[in-house]
């Protein structure tokens, strides 16, 4: 009884409520086609790639940083994998190298931020520009076709007849990272660093190490996402998943991850992701032009940030009470 009431007051409940309302509204507006199997597949497809970026961005934001290069890094990684496959590299090696490339990009950002004290957003913006250049250089701006059957299976295969592999991977990642963040020392360190890096350092935590690990992680997950996207569409292009870091960030912030760091969790981020995707898909299914979706994505990001601000100021108010 008491825990029930507590749940109703919780942030999670509000988020789930918003999600339910969105689903019902779109269900009615689309006359039921919103929940049809092939639309569900659309949702799953667009969601799985972004889910890795949501995890990467979520963890990074909880620690007080941000990585705007993930989309470009992921896209570069997709092209890299396709090229490696074309060169005849065995697919597991190609995949590993691809993820490693993403991780290296993350490490470079971490060096810029930690050693040279750049602000994270400008450092990663510069990184985005550089990786974007490299992706054009590698691909000459042309799409690279992926013929490898195994990779194709990862991208669009199903297990047990209907469970997409990517979805399984995404959900597994959410669970693993969720447990990592809420149940382990490392996760706690991330929150403490995000809350107050200097206090954390003076209490024996290494904020620098945490930041390196999280940039590394965000880059690697970006690489994985770019790879899965290329595998699903069976070709790698320079547009790939470019700019989808913003979707990842928006989902995380919507789900309660604080932009300033130190608060929120991956459970919320997951629901945030569902909300974002339900919304995008709903717009699509209602036949709203994709251009309006660009418009809407900006509005949602701003709205999520305003929500974040409202939460922060509510905390500040409760401070005064």
């Amino acid at each position, binding site marked *: 009884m008491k825990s029930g009431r507590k749940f109703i007051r919780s942030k999670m409940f509000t988020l789930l409520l918003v999600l339910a309302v969105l689903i019902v509204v779109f269900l009615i507006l689309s006359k039921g086609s919103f929940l049809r199997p092939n639309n569900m597949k659309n949702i799953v497809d667009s969601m799985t790639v972004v889910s890795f970026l949501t995890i990467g961005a979520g963890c990074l934001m909880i620690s007080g940083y941000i990585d705007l290069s993930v989309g470009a890094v992921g896209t570069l990684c997709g092209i890299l994998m396709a090229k490696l496959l074309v060169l005849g590299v065995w697919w597991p090696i190609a995949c590993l190298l691809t993820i490693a490339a993403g991780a290296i990009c993350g490490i470079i950002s971490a060096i810029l931020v930690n050693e040279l004290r750049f602000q994270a957003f400008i450092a990663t913006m510069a990184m985005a520009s550089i990786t974007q250049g490299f992706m054009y250089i590698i691909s000459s701006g042309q799409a690279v076709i992926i013929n490898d059957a195994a990779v194709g299976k990862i991208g669009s295969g199903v297990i047990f007849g209907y469970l997409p592999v990517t979805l399984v991977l995404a959900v597994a990642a959410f669970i693993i990272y969720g447990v990592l963040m809420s149940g382990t020392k490392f996760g706690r360190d991330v929150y403490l660093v995000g809350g107050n890096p200097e206090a954390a350092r003076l*209490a024996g935590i290494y904020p620098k190490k945490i930041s390196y690990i999280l940039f590394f992680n965000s880059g690697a997950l970006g690489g994985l996402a770019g790879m899965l996207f290329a595998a699903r569409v069976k070709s790698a292009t320079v547009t790939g998943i470019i700019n989808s870091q913003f979707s990842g960030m928006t989902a995380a912030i919507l789900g309660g991850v604080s932009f300033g760091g130190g608060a929120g969790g991956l459970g919320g981020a997951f629901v945030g992701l569902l909300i974002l995707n339900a919304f995008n898909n709903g717009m699509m299914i209602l036949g709203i032009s994709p251009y309006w979706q660009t418009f809407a994505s900006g509005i949602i990001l701003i709205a999520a940030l305003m929500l974040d601000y409202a939460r922060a100021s509510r905390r500040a108010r409760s401070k005064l009470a």
Partner: protein
Amino acid sequence: MSRYLEFDGIGKAFPGVQALRGISFRAESGRVLALLGENGAGKSTLLKIMSGDLQPDEGRLLRDGEPAVFSSPFHAIKSGISVIYQERQIMPMMTVMENIFLDDAPRKMGVVSRKALKRQTQEIIDRFGLPIFPTETVGRLSVAYQQMVEIMKAYRRNSDVIAFDEPTAPLTDTEIAILFKLIGELKAAGKIIIYVSHRLTEIFKITDDIVILKDGQLVKTVETGRTDERELIRAMVGRDIGDTYSELKRNDVLGETVLDVQDLVTDVVHGVSFTLRKGEVLGFAGLAGAGRTEVVRAIFGADPIISGQIKLDGKTVRFKSPRDAIDAGIALCPEDRKEQGLVLLRSLKDNISMPVLRKIRRAIFLDKKAEVDLARRAVEKYSIKTPGVDKVVVELSGGNQQKVILGRWTSDKMTTKVLIFDEPTKGIDVGTKAEVYQMVCDFAKAGMGVIFISSELTEVINIADAILVMHNGHITGKVNREDATEENILRLAMLE
């Protein structure tokens, strides 16, 4: 020109603290009014209200009987009130003249005239008799000159009311003499001057009236000529403070040397050596910026060391990070609780378990039950007032926050040998202060070596077994408990 500035029943609350309550007094034109009180008595808050930076919760300001409401510093400055803050409000990248004139630079047809700007600045500098140039970058000046730039800024504004918040802290005697001469001139010109300082000798030298605050309340108003130092201290400290110290259960058994520092050199510290014995409380005194904090931060591995040797229990150690120091048994309660001590938006238990997370694990997961137990024990041990261990620390009072940090360093998962306190009683109320003093003595009794840094001289004198006095990155002397007086410590601290 206004004749007087009146504070009428001013009250102000912050989270967990009633900073000011019912403050009423009057500052008159042509007189210097001293605002006196210990750290955390509410002087700074009062100045901030006066300058429009904060709005009072209750009460009002009156000028010549007319209510004056300042919704921002802009309004206060426009109506002729200047406050020179303790934290310097300079623009380090800009020149002296730009800092002094800010956006009021002399203009010709709307355009800033650099020539006039330079000339007028030079005039002010000459008036103060300082060896600086109008075109110098302020960031390259020493702290003392930066402070003088601040003062020149207020002087230039020609305000009716000028408040100084501990202006002499970074100044040398000659500079202080110049400042006092200027204050005399301002006074003769009929300005209203409010002067905040700890230094009683200064108060007797230049002020006419004294207002004493204690714990946010006004305890005494008196004319300077009709009082003496003893009376002021009694009013500031309250009569119970002497008893607090005499009731302390001190440790009197000193063990062997636990910490031995030789020739420690960092960016700011120049060759500091001392030893600390088990069971000893070693005080560090000195003015702000003397290098006390930097010494302990270097020992703790928080700042890089250039040279020097540190021995802990006879073994030479060199800590690359606070983690190493913590593992070796050194703990630091930092100067700024909120900025460096606590993760304010996390719970009490999270803040207590911070350094020992690796010891409360089951497999790779945190043992949350063990963590809660750890926090509960700290809450009990130090009687922290909180509804539960999940309470966010930002909602606790200053004293309880300090106890959370103590709980962190003295939990049973820690093996602390050396416990360092940097200004532990800053901004906490008198009752909790007494508790903190007793805890410090208890830690010494338990065999830890304790380093106790404080700017409140009475506190260091009464708590520490021996006091090291620092000035400008050097140790200028060691005073034993028996010989410690405010005078001989201050003399060492202000050595020129």
